[in-house]
């Protein structure tokens, strides 16, 4: 194997770690520039001064001048530090550890590889999650209380919980059902991939962008004025009265869920389509010989056979709908009896500065995903057992 030939003895073993250390120093300097709120403009100003462009430098330090150039400089440093720096860190520390006696090397090396990830996971997920759970049981003075959860029984909160349940059931059910139907249909026509791309494409669109797209579909003008929203134009064209879709409860909840279904159906369809292609032809032929219609074949044979994929997709979409924030926040802000947990949590924390209630709402979401966590862990253990 080629790897063995590149292993050189002697001094060259030290070249890599030392070059790495120099690179690391550069990266630390880069991080300092990035950490400084005015790091980009200041650095560019220093460069301008060195080049003799004093007025340009002064402009930059005063917050005007070539701010875009300064920003691009910052981006270049970020990329250098972000990508190059991480690599240097691993290679240089890995190189240093390789110099240790084998016994120590084998003990330390895995932590060099996995360490940065574990530290980040601890700082950004494990510690905050524990903190949020504790905070949800405390009042603003740190006293233990259940008050943050007790308010959940009040009418405006029960409505939020009801809306979230509707999102969960209709959003997940709609995406999965449509995904299944589309996968079954599209597989049987020419230009399958074009059709799939068109349905799959919304997955690339942000929830904010999708909210604008659908906000325009749902646009409402008073009766008598020209309807520029597609849906109300159809309603009026059929002789009805225009409906302010997004401010009419409870229709608005379903209108918002449709945005989510529009985005997620493509994901479900693609996974199901791949799973259907894996169903063996023998089973299908046997069922056909037994006189099953194509529809029976799909519902009674194919759907049960791709059950695993259906469960995976359902749990994935269920988690997305459970945490839904952007669509509600952008379309109505939850003002028209269409509020959901994640949106209310955002408002509690960042508008009302009610951290305890926000933490309780987050904890509620956490409890709601626990069954999925259990399923994932069970599947993982089973997989490990097989492997």
């Amino acid at each position, binding site marked *: *194997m080629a*790897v063995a030939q*590149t292993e050189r003895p002697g001094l060259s073993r030290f070249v890599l770690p030392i070059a790495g250390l120099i690179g690391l120093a550069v990266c630390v300097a880069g*991080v300092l520039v990035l*950490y400084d709120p005015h790091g980009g403009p200041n650095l560019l100003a220093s460069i301008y001064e060195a080049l003799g462009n004093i007025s340009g430098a002064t402009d930059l330090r005063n917050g005007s001048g070539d701010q875009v150039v300064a*920003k*691009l400089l910052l981006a270049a440093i*970020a*990329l250098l530090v972000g*990508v190059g720096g*991480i690599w240097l860190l*691993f290679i240089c520390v*890995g*190189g240093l550890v390789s110099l240790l006696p084998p016994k120590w090397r084998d003990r330390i090396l895995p932590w060099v*590889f996995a360490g940065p*990830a*574990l530290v*980040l996971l601890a700082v*950004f*997920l494990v510690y*905050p999650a524990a*903190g*949020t759970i504790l*905070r949800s049981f405390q009042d603003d003075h740190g006293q233990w209380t259940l008050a943050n959860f007790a308010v959940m029984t009040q009418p405006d909160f029960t409505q939020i919980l009801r809306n979230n349940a509707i999102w969960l059931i209709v959003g997940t059910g709609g995406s999965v059902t449509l995904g299944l139907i589309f996968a*079954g*249909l599209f597989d049987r*026509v020419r230009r399958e991939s*074009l*059709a799939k791309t068109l349905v799959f494409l*919304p997955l*690339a669109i*942000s*929830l*904010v*962008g999708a909210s*604008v*797209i659908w906000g*325009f*579909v749902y646009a409402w003008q008073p009766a008598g004025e*020209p309807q*520029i*929203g*597609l849906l109300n*134009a159809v309603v009026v064209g059929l002789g009805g009265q225009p409906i302010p879709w997004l401010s009419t409860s409870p229709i608005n909840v379903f209108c918002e869920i449709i945005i989510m279904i*529009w985005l997620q159906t493509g*994901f479900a369809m*693609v*996974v199901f389509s*791949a799973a259907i292609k894996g*169903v*063996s032809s023998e089973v*299908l032929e046997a069922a056909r010989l037994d006189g099953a219609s194509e529809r029976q*074949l799909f519902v009674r044979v194919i759907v049960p056979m791709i059950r695993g*994929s259906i469960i995976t997709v359902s749990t994935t979409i269920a*988690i997305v709908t459970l945490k839904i924030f952007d669509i509600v926040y952008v379309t109505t802000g939850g003002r028209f009896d269409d509020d959901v947990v*994640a949106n209310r949590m955002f408002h509690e924390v960042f508008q009302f500065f009610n951290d305890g209630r926000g*933490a309780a709402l987050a904890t509620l979401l956490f409890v709601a*995903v626990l069954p999925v966590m259990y399923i*994932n862990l069970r*599947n993982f253990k089973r997989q490990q057992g097989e492997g």
Partner: protein
Amino acid sequence: MTAPAKAVDTPKAGVSAWRPGFIRSVPLRLSVFFICFLWTLPTLGLLVTSVRDPKNITTSGWWTALLHPFEANQWTLSNYQTVLASGGMGDAFINSLIVTIPSVAIPITIAAFAAYAFAWIPFRGRGILFTIVVALLVVPIQMSLIPILQIYSAGNLYGSFLGIWLAHTGFGLPLAIFLLYNFISQLPRDLFESASIDGATHLQTFTRIVLPLSIPALGAIAIFQFLWVWNDLLVALVFLGPGADVRVLPTALFQLIGSRGGSWHLLTAGAFITMVVPLVVFLLLQRAFVRGITAGSVKS
């Protein structure tokens, strides 16, 4: 059944057994066409509106413009000029690039090293630590917002690019580690045994064998993370905030909705600006993306 006969029955790669030759039924084709039409219509409306003269937008539906598409004076790019310059979408676009690129590159690099360790370096606590990673896959981001914001406020990281790179790195890691682990742990054991016999260190095995072989998986995860970061509103709102010097495209678009809610000529152009990069990336790399999704989902 004997082996050769089975081989004859087995469908060719990519051809479904569910599809017994193309069915030429008109209702089926019509319904597929109708679905595609329905799914594309909202985006089409956005695109058409974004290039229409603002004064037409509020007086007639966008579909009426398609009835006489060759009247050149109804089309304009001025909406884009307005929204890029005075709407601040131009600056936001640059900020989005600055936020996204490191937020994709950093977590994937860190996850690749970690996934290799979890898959091929035995160490104490490996099983329980990886179980924790699997558990973290579904923990809602909402659980992290309040404590992390407190840390950021204390450490002057709120509103800084550094802060949001770190946040996206932390939040993106569980999925990246999990998917890469699934891929790397499936590589043939012989590969690692012969490398080890040849005296290769783990670092060499990783960089020269595992990484080149993992490029498809790395690509798929990069697309995931790119779409997630580029399209994210919540993390950007909480950790970067609405300041014009740092705000990203989703934040800018949201603010545009707040300030110019009825100005569909600006909203549609702004929305399209936020969408164009992910759409291009998505269309170019769709196959890699689909491979990533299905590899993660179909197996179980």
